[in-house]
């Protein structure tokens, strides 16, 4: 038999993978990001994107937004494991399909081309709240906010029109309506 002689059982069939967005409120202390990220790498969870910044300067609270994929069982584990970390205050977990939650990513796009092409680019960006941050005769830096896949599509589309570099944030999330996550 060609399969390796292992001391452990064979993996059972994998379930369906879902994409989830975790929002984690943590004490903004040194090493806290390493703890959260280390938990993911140490237990073999996957991180698609990560966004983190302090949101409450008086209480020293940072908000970490992590996009990840996993089977329902793994998603459940991620949540429970995150909650066990000492500097973690609360953990929210949303399905990407969740209509009650707004997900946004920001991208900075640098386009180097002739005016005609640049104008064409800006037109393409119109749907995604474009802000022109810098403009010269030969170039433009434009900021857009959109969903991940929309930005993916945009960069593909703008490549032939002179897109030379892209810088993107990870997704951040917020629930709709008056409610806040407790």
């Amino acid at each position: 038999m060609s399969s390796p002689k292992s001391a452990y059982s064979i993996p059972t069939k994998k379930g369906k993978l879902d994409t989830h967005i975790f929002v984690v409120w943590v004490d903004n202390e040194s090493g806290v990001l390493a703890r959260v990220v280390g938990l993911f790498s140490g237990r073999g969870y996957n991180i698609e994107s990560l966004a983190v910044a302090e949101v409450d300067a008086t209480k020293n609270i940072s908000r970490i937004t992590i996009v990840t994929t996993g089977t329902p069982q793994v998603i459940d584990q991620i949540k429970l494991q995150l909650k066990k970390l000492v500097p973690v205050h609360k953990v929210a977990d949303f399905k990407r399909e969740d209509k009650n939650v707004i997900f946004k990513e920001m991208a900075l796009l640098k386009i180097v081309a002739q005016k005609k092409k640049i104008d064409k680019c800006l037109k393409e960006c119109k749907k995604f709240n474009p802000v022109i941050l810098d403009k010269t005769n030969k170039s433009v830096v434009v900021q857009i906010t959109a969903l991940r896949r929309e930005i993916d599509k945009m960069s593909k589309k703008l490549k032939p029109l002179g897109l030379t570099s892209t810088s993107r944030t990870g997704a951040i999330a917020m629930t709709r309506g008056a409610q806040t996550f407790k």
Partner: protein
Amino acid sequence: MSKLYTGAEIVFKCLEDQEVEYIFGYPGGAVLPIYDELKHHSSIKHILVRHEQGAGHAAEGYARSSGKPGVVLVTSGPGATNVVTALTDAYMDSIPLVCISGQVPTHLIGTDAFQECDTTGITRPCTKHNWLVKDIKELPKIMHEAFKVATTGRPGPVLIDIPKDIQFAKTNYTKFKKEKKLNGKIHNKFSENEINQLIDLISKAKKPVVYTGGGVINSGPQASETLKEFVRLIGFPITSTLQGLGAFPGDDNQFIGMLGMHGTYEANNAMHDCDLLINIGARFDDRITGKIDEFSPKSKKVHIDIDPSSINKIIKVDLAIVGDVNEVIKSAIKKINKKQNGLKDSNKQRISKWWEQIQKWRTKDSLGFINSDKEIKPQHAVKRLYELTKNQDTFITTEVGQHQMWAAQHYKFNKPNRWMTSGGLGTMGYGLPAAVGVQIAHPDKLVIDIAGEASVLMTIQEMSTAVQYNLPIKIFILNNQYMGMVRQWQELLHEKNYSESYSEALPDFVKLAEAYGCKGIKADNPDELDDKIKEMIDYNGPVIFDCHVDPNENCFPMIPSGKPHNQMILGPNDKEENKITGKGKSLV
């Protein structure tokens, strides 16, 4: 203005306030200020080990046998890296440890200074939490928080890294008051409804089994008493994991032995065929479940655990009760007594057929072995050791391997906290230093490390610690000259290619004992075994007992990993021995 204390003084003030009596440690440059302060604190005794790993395991043995957190003190760099194995071991087996490590002065951190390492970085995945103290004012708070994190919820190790300049710096210290309020990381809010559901399942079950683990031990000695009451009340068969042994009396008729890879035939078959499985403080470890897809396929499953992340991690359960084991079973007992007076009789009747089946499985005598009058069989040695020590309160530690499984199978524990073994991490070299820690916690008790000759050599240097502190630990080595468990797997699965599992040039353990200044005893004949064991027990001081056993003995029964519980390999006594072939071979 109140008096200012140095960081080193504050460390001891905190330890005093936490009622710490012993610290296990090894000095070095970056902890010298703390060591300097030691002499002013007579209530705290320092145990000097010979290697930092030994300090960690000794603290584990101390903690496991006493229920108090173990405290470790090591220096920076190699001191900290040497203790990593013990921290990981404690993390896997949920043992409360507080490790204090020295660090290079704050201004040198990050410069690759002498004996510098990223201690908090290295120990982050193997502790519940760790702290690098950057400000002296934080030190008292962190010290007390560390004890709280280590001992509450699911216990575990924590580490506090204190740079040398912080140990010299001064600040105020206000006396610590133990707060009663539980913090947010502790989960003990199970509901009445969950208890009702549990009782409903109990009253309907026809083929139930209770499966207990280390969580019962961690819940305190009271939990074992409550468990006994509970199990006697419901009349169910009970099995235990390696870590849970002793929570329920091993010689009780309701106890059907340890389960899992080397568990009894009756326990594993009961797990497979049951219709109700009540997991109390265990975590469905892979050595227990075998093949997940075929694990206990027909049962409703209940999981009682204090750690919410243990629930549904490996096995999906029908009812999860998150809470302290003792509290949960106590309220279940209360409910049963109050609500269902008839349960006791009617339930026992309902499960009488199940008990008959279990008796049938028992007649297989799966722990049986063919004894010999020429060679000492390792199982026989453990059995004799048990018989000759069962009349006194004995504490057993083990190393890792065949001897550990034989000890678990043949030594019967009647009380919790008497059995210290490395289950999760499987650390060879755990038993000897753990015995040191156990003996410190229980100076008048008999402490025996059932060891293998390969394991014990990994931390043999701690004999010197035992001699220094006059700790009469007994190292009972089942010497088969092989890494027995490795050899067994090679025999069964790798065509008897005994690659590197034979130890040539083993030391003469009797002379080794003498070199350390303790007593050496050697036995290689079954006739002399009893007398020699008695000689070991009666000797007032540390002993290394070199028990030469049959080198070819295998540990049975055994479930190969790829197989479910009802497909065990039994020992040579069993005629229909189930050879591992084909697919199964790749999985063990």
